[in-house]
């Protein structure tokens, strides 16, 4: 029995040293959360859909609707999000949940999306979830918002929980929206004896994002462009751009094509993404494909109700 325990511990530590690429978590805080945004380089800091709660709470002032999305990154890596916004006077209240289930590599925590994608199917199940509540208010032409997230990762028999806060600011300048979001501020997850943490604390994956959104008609099309640069706690700086061209033939109905490019920050991100959307009155269907390493493609399909 003792030999077995030692062997297991060695195996875990060996696998961990080979795979671990981040010291920040929980994973749920760094997952894409919107099909439309994911197709546009996962940039939504200046977005106006309800799922902007996962990117910049300040935009809850102008966001509207309810959405749900389903993601499939690998056969064993699936998840989804749900979010909604309630307009309150000149402000907005939003709620969102982001969830991912996967197979967890032995002894690896914190983990990245890259790692769970690469994990064989015979490993123990894991999951990540974050629930976010946000509020934003317009003030003298600015939009100011805050949100709080409760995030939890469950890896094998271990469970890791933490809370984090986001703060955002946004303002329109004509057709441009300028937005700044500082996300995942909060205390480190203290090591309370878990073998996985190996005696170290896990800080939230804090990042600051400055971005722009722009939209304008161009001939028969409605164009949207967005750009953002994110500075990550890991030390990476990750710029990205996204664009959408929508064509409407009847008021309330449109089809759109989207593309995004992001300079990857080394983990989790893809270089390219793309997708399309169909809006039919108050319902929208968005589909995104994110082209990951090793020819893997992450898909997400979302439905929005406005």
């Amino acid at each position, binding site marked *: 029995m003792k030999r077995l325990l030692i062997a297991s511990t060695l195996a875990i530590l060996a696998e961990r040293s080979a795979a671990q690429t981040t010291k920040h978590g929980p994973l749920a805080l760094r997952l894409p959360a919107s099909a439309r945004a994911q197709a546009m380089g996962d940039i939504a800091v200046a977005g106006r859909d309800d799922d902007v709660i996962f990117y910049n709470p300040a935009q809850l002032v102008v966001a509207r609707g309810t959405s749900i999305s389903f993601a499939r990154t690998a056969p064993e890596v699936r998840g989804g999000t749900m979010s909604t916004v309630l307009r309150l006077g000149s402000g907005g209240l939003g709620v969102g949940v982001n969830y991912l289930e996967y197979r967890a590599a032995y002894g690896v925590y914190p983990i990245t999306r890259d790692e769970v994608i690469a994990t064989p199917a015979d490993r123990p199940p894991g999951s990540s979830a974050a629930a976010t509540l946000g509020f934003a208010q317009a003030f003298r032409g600015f939009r100011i918002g805050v949100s709080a997230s409760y995030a939890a990762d469950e890896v094998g028999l271990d469970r890791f929980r933490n809370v984090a806060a986001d703060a955002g600011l946004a303002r329109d300048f004509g057709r441009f929206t300028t937005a700044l979001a500082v996300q995942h501020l909060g205390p480190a997850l203290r090591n309370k004896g878990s073998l996985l943490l190996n005696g170290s604390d896990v800080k939230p994956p804090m990042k600051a994002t400055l971005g722009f959104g722009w939209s304008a008609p161009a001939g028969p099309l409605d164009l949207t462009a967005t750009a953002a640069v994110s500075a990550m706690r890991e030390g990476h700086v990750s710029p990205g751009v996204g664009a959408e061209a929508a064509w409407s033939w009847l*008021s309330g109905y449109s089809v759109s094509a989207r593309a995004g490019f992001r300079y990857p920050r080394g983990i989790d991100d893809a270089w390219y993404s793309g997708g*399309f959307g169909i809006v*039919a009155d108050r319902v929208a269907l968005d589909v995104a494909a994110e082209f990951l390493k090793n020819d893997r493609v992450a898909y997400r399909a979302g439905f929005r109700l406005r």
Partner: protein
Amino acid sequence: MRSHIMSQRVIKSFSARTSVRAAIGTAVLAAGACTQALKLAPDDSKSVLATQAITAPNPGLPGTFRVKTMYYGSGTDKRRPEFKDSVTLKTTAVDGSAFVSIAGDAGKTHDKFWGFTLKKMPLNGRVWYPEGDGPFPLVLVVHGNHTPDDYSDPGYRYLGEQLASHGFILVSIDENFINGLSGENDGRGWLLLKHLERWKKWNDSTGSPFLGKVDMHQIALMGHSRGGEAIAHAAAFNRLSHYPDDAKVTFNFNFDIKALVAIAPVDGQYKPATVFVPLENVNYLVVHGSHDGDVSSFGGLRQFQRLKFTDGQPWFKSAWYVYRANHGQWNQVWGNKDNGPRSGRSLDLRGLITPDEQREFGKVVITAFLESTLKARQEYLPMFRDHRTAGAWLPKTMYITRFQANGFTPVAVFDEDVDVTTGASPGVKISGDSLGTWKESGLTLRGGANDVLNTNAVTLGWNNMVAGKDTAKRGKPASYTITLPDSLIRAIGVSTRSAFCFSLAPLDAKPGPRSPPRDTTKKDSTAKKDSTEKPPAPPKEKAKPDTFPIDLTIEITDAAGVSASVPIRRYGIPRRPLEVRIMRRAVQEQQRFPNKFEVVLQSYSIPLADLVSLAPSLDVTTLRSVRFVFDRAVWGTVQIDDIGIWVNANPAFFAARVP
């Protein structure tokens, strides 16, 4: 194995593509299903406009004058060469900041784009004028709100060429530099008067190319959309000594503005002291398209209602509702997409008459109106009383027209009290017989309760069928009687030159059949019958709209009891409501418009001489009662307003009649 994987990928790929195509196809189908079918009211124009009773030349054709053009303006315009290097006459700027303001960044953007502030508004105009010595009547036309850099003033070229060929000077005023603003409508009107000041100066100045060529006693103002409201403000300011919003600003205009032409006007954007700007003593024409995607209610009818004639001059006012006309086609620049270049996504453009047809209408009616009011030509007057007299000139669509002339004495206008049995003058008594509906209420436009005309009308419904198994059984025709006191008839001097006038619109409501009369020879016979007979079964399916023509009879009776009657169809066309669908999507149509149709009353003027010719012993100087007899349609509902007597009706209005 590899081929198996490949085939799986192909299947997956095919499946994905199929799904995407299915999704797009579903969306397109859903969108198609959400687009309303084109639905227009049945067109009766071929029969209604089959007659050309007026024998004068078609006013829509070019006149005999050779047309010249010129520009006047600042000479410094940075956006348009015609107001920079091409100006024949230079004008100095005027300070419009008391009337128009822009705050903050918008002001900076405005000033940068145009190169001047609101303190230095240019007086720019493009002029079409007839070759000759004149003097020629002067007509100013001003555009409404539109994208500022899509310049609106060239869009009235068709009117400029047309009117100049008929001997009018037409000036299209540039107010593009206050487009896109709000709270500026008084400024639009004030600018027109500043232009008139220039024209007076040029007409009086030696060396001016227009010396003595302008008839400053015959001036008309014409405006489209916001400009259509602005002309009313100009007419009001023209008679005021002080600006209502700031008495420090004084006026001294007093021009001889004889006519106003409002094209699809807005109304009520400027309300000094929170009241609609009063209008009086001017000839007035308003035209509006049923399929106006911008100003979708006939708000100009409020101006029409407000206009009062108080000075005994021969003014008249005329309103035209043009079925299938829109907002933008009155202007050659604006086009048919009333809410911007992309509004074809939301507006149903399929039902519109063509731009040429719409402008042809404008040329015919506006030229005839200005010929009548600025040149005192009488031969076109009948078409304003009954548009059917100009059947061959008007594009083939449906029209509803309102008309009233000075000398109209109201008998029942339903605004004065809440007693449905009293009229507009003391002693007038009103009664109803066998009516299914009888009520007085406010007239509303398509926008419903928030879109009121600020005037009341009476709603009368009738169903001459008698309930029971015998569906052919009819009761006595319902009627609505106005009894006139002798003192009123003598005081206003009713004679055979007078005409009985009213305005009426059929509605789509159908009152239920009336109860059978009680058999009074048997005790409690109806109660017994009621107790044994089953109540009528509810209708199994939604009733189809009625299609039989609406008509009714006007019966006049004198003090001696002599009566004569005529059907109203002889004096105007009573039509069922003209259904309007402006939006492509039914849900948007319903959200925007509570009513499927605009209730526009058609005016009828019935010369009392016609009734005397039917009953020579009828003495109209002792007129006692007027009865609306609902005997020509089994059932129906109508709204009626402005019942009165046009005492000394100008016979020229009746010189041409529809047989």
